[in-house]
């Protein structure tokens, strides 16, 4: 039989895989095939063993008040309904837990079935469990809940808000003042500055909407709980759940090999998981929950709306003299969640006088949480829009304004950046974009009915590394297995781990298996803050180094080895051989046989610079200690990039489209350029989304989300995205960690929202300070004739 010809699919512009695997080799994902064939199993693919029962949530129709009546009678008549959880039978049997910010694991302390109290729209008020999903859903629809409603506070400018300074609400272990970086006298310098910008900026509520819904499956056996749930933090979930249920962490196992999108939404434990575990224990049966898309808006976290006031003062030649950044962020009533991006925004440019402050605005909302580039997305929108306004006021090219204020030292404490290639990024991107052809006057570039606008902005993201552990096992056949409880959130961590092992052990990728996403494996930090590649690859390299060293030491002391008498440090594992610098080599199996009888297993831990000495102990308790960014005492470490965008605005009907983007990024060592490019490109596209499309609308009277589905919560579709160019600017940073990895998971989307707004100004003369940018904000553009 002849094989049917396989279609050759080649992504346009995608480089072919590099021949020899290793750090820096462009490589297709090793899990790609499993993903596209459906072999890869995601959280919601598991059903917890035989005969699971199904749960369906009932969520509140009010944002604030009390439940006065729960009528279950109709629900109980539905055939197949097994159990109904409400505050009456849950109460304090599940502990609320502490939030992530508070050295806990939870996204919120609002324990939904603890009492009759309703804290926010869409709070879980009951869980109906039945033999089938359909019966559970029908039962849930038939449950009658009556409320005593109180007037809720929805968002900024609503009556009844509580506003507190983030500094007074700082978390344990933080020094007061950390939330308000300042230096010099910004007020005085601003007053004296010849050129000034003083403006407010707003970013909207956004929801992650990962394509995999929020699902949880729980099963108990002999007092031990197994949970299948997509998670960015399996050790955190394990420890958090144990605390909530009053059992030992060792009696909880979290399984999450593949994750159908997370973006921060699965970083902290939601309250649903303990409820499903509890339901499963009551029924002595596996229970599976698949929450609806609508429920995902309120049972998990989201990016809260923010407001900013930026004051910039500059000399006529563009030197910043004063920078004040004030931020306001919405949170829930009980929780102090905040992103406090002044950390980054006050350190981006050279400026002698800086002040800042962040305020938490407590409203009757669910608690917000991490969403890709949590602080930088809103805070750099404000700063980078203001910088563009300053460039306009100065009649200066916005790239030149950034060059004038570029610095290798952060201005607050004067600490050096470990590396900073911001202007190299601007130069590479502006050249690729054709920026020199831009005419500065708004409305001056036109293509038929389209008004063209070109804009740019800076992106920055902290380089963070956390304590991590890994186990590497090498067999006599030369196959390796790498184990670490890290998380594949779509970024390609299986592949970078395999590349690191291939690099250090000198074996091909098909001899490497990688196991991640299971709390029984050695612990790895939360997949957040773009730390995973740096944290996990460094510890895997460390374990591999131990293996290499054992093999090398055995060789140099063996008379039958070609390496006899050499310095073991000079030997490397390459191409399945043990090699010396002068080219002598010995097959791996032979060298290996001297060092070990059977397999060689090495467990390694790594505590990076700046992490607490007990970082590993904390990690085993599910707490990640991310070190880096602006939090180090001796230096500051960030990755940088430049974002360029072209927008087109219809001269008459004012639709905005962004057909062209160029981004250039410098982020230290790139482990897998192919996946890194996809990651950055995805970020650029999300930047367009954040600028033009995404916003969760809130009914201000009810404090409830309105457009809670993907038909009405818009993200770009293929037709919205045309040309996306992603450029790597080479950068070597030997300080950040041994491998020189800076991380780039969240670098691609930051600043793009500002670049789009800046481009829209260039196209229309209308400055949009409130995202998203929509038609109605552009209809009155007096500068432009239709």
């Amino acid at each position: 039989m002849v094989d049917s010809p396989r279609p050759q699919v080649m992504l346009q512009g995608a480089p072919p895989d590099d021949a020899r695997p290793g750090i820096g080799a462009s490589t297709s994902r090793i899990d790609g095939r499993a993903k596209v064939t459906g072999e890869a199993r995601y959280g919601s693919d598991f059903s917890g063993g035989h005969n699971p029962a199904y749960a369906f949530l009932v969520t509140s129709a009010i944002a604030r008040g009390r439940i006065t009546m729960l009528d279950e009678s109709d629900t109980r008549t539905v055939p197949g309904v097994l159990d109904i959880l409400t505050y009456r039978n849950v109460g304090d049997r599940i502990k609320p837990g502490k939030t992530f910010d508070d050295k806990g694991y939870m996204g919120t302390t609002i324990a939904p079935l603890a009492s009759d109290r309703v804290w926010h729209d869409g709070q879980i008020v009951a869980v109906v469990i039945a033999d089938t999903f359909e019966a559970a859903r029908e039962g849930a629809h038939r449950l009658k809940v009556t409320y005593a409603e109180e007037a809720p506070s929805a968002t900024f400018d609503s009556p009844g808000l509580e506003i507190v300074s983030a500094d007074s609400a700082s978390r344990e272990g933080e020094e007061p003042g950390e939330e308000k970086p300042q230096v010099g006298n910004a007020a005085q310098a601003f007053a004296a500055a010849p050129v000034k910008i003083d403006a407010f900026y707003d970013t909207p509520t956004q929801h992650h909407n990962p394509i995999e819904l929020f699902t949880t499956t729980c099963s108990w056996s002999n007092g031990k709980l197994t949970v299948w749930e997509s998670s960015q933090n399996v050790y955190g979930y394990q420890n958090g759940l144990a605390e909530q249920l009053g059992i030992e962490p060792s009696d909880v196992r979290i399984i999450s090999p593949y994750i159908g999108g997370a973006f921060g939404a699965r970083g902290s434990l939601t309250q649903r998981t303990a409820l499903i575990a509890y339901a499963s224990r009551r029924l002595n049966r596996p229970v599976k929950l698949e929450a609806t898309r609508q429920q995902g808006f309120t049972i998990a976290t989201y990016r809260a709306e923010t407001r900013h006031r930026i004051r910039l003062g500059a000399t006529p030649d563009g030197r910043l003299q004063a920078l004040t950044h004030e931020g306001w962020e919405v949170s829930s009533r009980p929780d102090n969640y905040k992103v406090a991006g002044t950390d980054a925004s006050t350190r981006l440019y050279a400026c002698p006088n800086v002040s800042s402050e962040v305020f938490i605005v407590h409203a009757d909302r669910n608690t917000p949480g991490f969403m890709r580039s949590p602080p930088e997305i809103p805070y750099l929108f404000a700063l980078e829009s203001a910088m563009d306004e300053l460039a306009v006021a100065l009649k200066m090219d916005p790239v030149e304004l950034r060059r004038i204020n570029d610095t290798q030292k952060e201005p607050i404490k004067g600490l050096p950046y470990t590396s900073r290639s911001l202007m190299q990024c601007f130069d590479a991107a502006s050249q690729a974009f054709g920026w020199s052809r831009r005419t500065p006057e708004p409305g001056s570039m036109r293509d038929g009915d389209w008004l063209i606008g070109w804009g740019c902005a800076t992106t920055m993201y902290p380089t963070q590394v956390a304590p991590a552990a890994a186990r590497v096992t090498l067999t006599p056949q030369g196959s390796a297995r790498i184990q670490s409880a890290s998380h594949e959130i779509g970024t390609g961590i299986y592949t970078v781990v395999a590349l690191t092992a291939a690099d250090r052990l000198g074996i091909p990728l098909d001899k490497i298996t990688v196991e991640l996403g299971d709390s029984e494996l050695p612990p790895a930090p939360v997949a957040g803050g773009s730390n995973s590649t740096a944290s996990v690859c460094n510890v895997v390299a460390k374990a591999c180094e131990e293996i290499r060293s054992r093999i090398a030491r055995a060789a140099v002391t063996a008379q039958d080895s070609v390496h006899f008498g050499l310095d073991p440090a000079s030997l490397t594992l390459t191409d399945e051989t043990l090699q010396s610098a002068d080219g002598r080599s010995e097959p791996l199996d032979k060298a290996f046989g001297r060092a070990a009888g059977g397999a060689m297993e090495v467990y390694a831990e790594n505590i990076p610079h700046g992490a607490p000495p007990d970082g590993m102990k904390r990690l085993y308790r599910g707490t990640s200690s991310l070190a880096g960014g602006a939090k180090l005492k001796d230096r500051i470490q960030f990755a940088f990039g430049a974002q360029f965008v072209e927008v087109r605005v219809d001269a008459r009907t004012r639709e905005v489209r962004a057909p062209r983007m160029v981004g250039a990024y410098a982020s230290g060592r790139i482990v897998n350029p192919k996946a890194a490019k996809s990651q950055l490109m995805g970020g650029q596209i999300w930047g367009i989304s954040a600028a033009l499309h995404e916003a969760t609308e809130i009914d201000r009277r009810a404090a409830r989300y309105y457009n809670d589905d993907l038909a009405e919560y818009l993200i770009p579709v293929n037709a919205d995205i045309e040309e996306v160019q992603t450029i790597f600017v080479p950068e070597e940073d030997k300080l950040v960690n041994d491998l020189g990895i800076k991380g780039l998971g969240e670098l691609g989307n930051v600043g793009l929202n500002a670049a789009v707004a800046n481009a829209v100004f260039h196209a229309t003369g209308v400055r949009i300070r409130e995202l998203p940018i929509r038609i109605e904000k552009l209809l009155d553009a007096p500068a432009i004739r239709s």
Partner: protein
Amino acid sequence: MRPFLYERADDVQSALRAAAPTSQTSIPPTEASAQFIAGGTLLLDLMKLDTMRPQVLVDINGLERTHGQIAATAQELRLGALVRMSQAAEHPDILRDYPLIAQSLQQAASAQLRNMASLGGNVLQRTRCQYFRDPSWPACNKRAPGTGCSALEGVNRKHAVLGINEHCIAEYPGDFGPTLAALGASVETAGPGGARSIPFERLHNGPEVPNVETVLAPGELITGFVVPAGPWTRRSVYLKVRDRQSYAFGLATAAVALDLSDGVVNEARIGLGGVAYKPWRAHDAEAVLRGKPFDEAIAHAAAEAAFAGARAHGENEYKLDLGRRTLVRALLQAAKLEI
């Protein structure tokens, strides 16, 4: 979602029998206990949201053999109720002679939905007002008569500015409907009382009684559409202005067909979408154009006339302006066409 009976009909008679109303009391067809299901892209959505709760679903996809055809003659275009949106969007006669129909369907929904959804179901699609779709909102006259309208002072960026009253300001979201209104099409139906033909413009009611959306009787089946031919259909445009480039409902749309000779408008047909309570025909705007030499100024005058009676409720204020601009742009585009 509640349990329901599912029946398949292979011909019109069995469909009517299966969907025959069980009681004599008059209820709006959308609330009848038996509902036809074609593509199911609207109905299943609303059932899962617990907004529609039919007890019987009558699957009419078996009628595709008899009511899934497109036939164009010199006099008219006939479209069966079970023609899929994608089928009509790609039909060569429609592409050539009725470009606005093809364009309205090409720009509607997504490829997957267009392959599934029928034209009969399409014209009966219901508003995207989320206060209506999500039954956890207490006030909605359309879903729960007499409870009030949450949108009047609520989130109403997408809501209608034409043909509304204080009972309901929901927008009709469809794209195909406005083209049928513009072209003076009619709807053919079969019902317990026999077959009838209804001018498309009269199929949908105004908001006087918001939960009674059409003049159809419970159990009445749409069998097809008839679009009269005319010298204006070729010079036609469907312009859809929306928040993203594809797969989004229109904020303002205009279906425009012009018969021009020597720069003078012999006939103009204008339908509007996204801005009105129902598929909207802008008769006043047509009258402004009829018999006049076409230029940008007259296009503006027509747009003024089209929106003369429009009223906004806050967030949708921009639609007054955007709706006019959309119509002007569509008229200018149509006038420029080389045909």
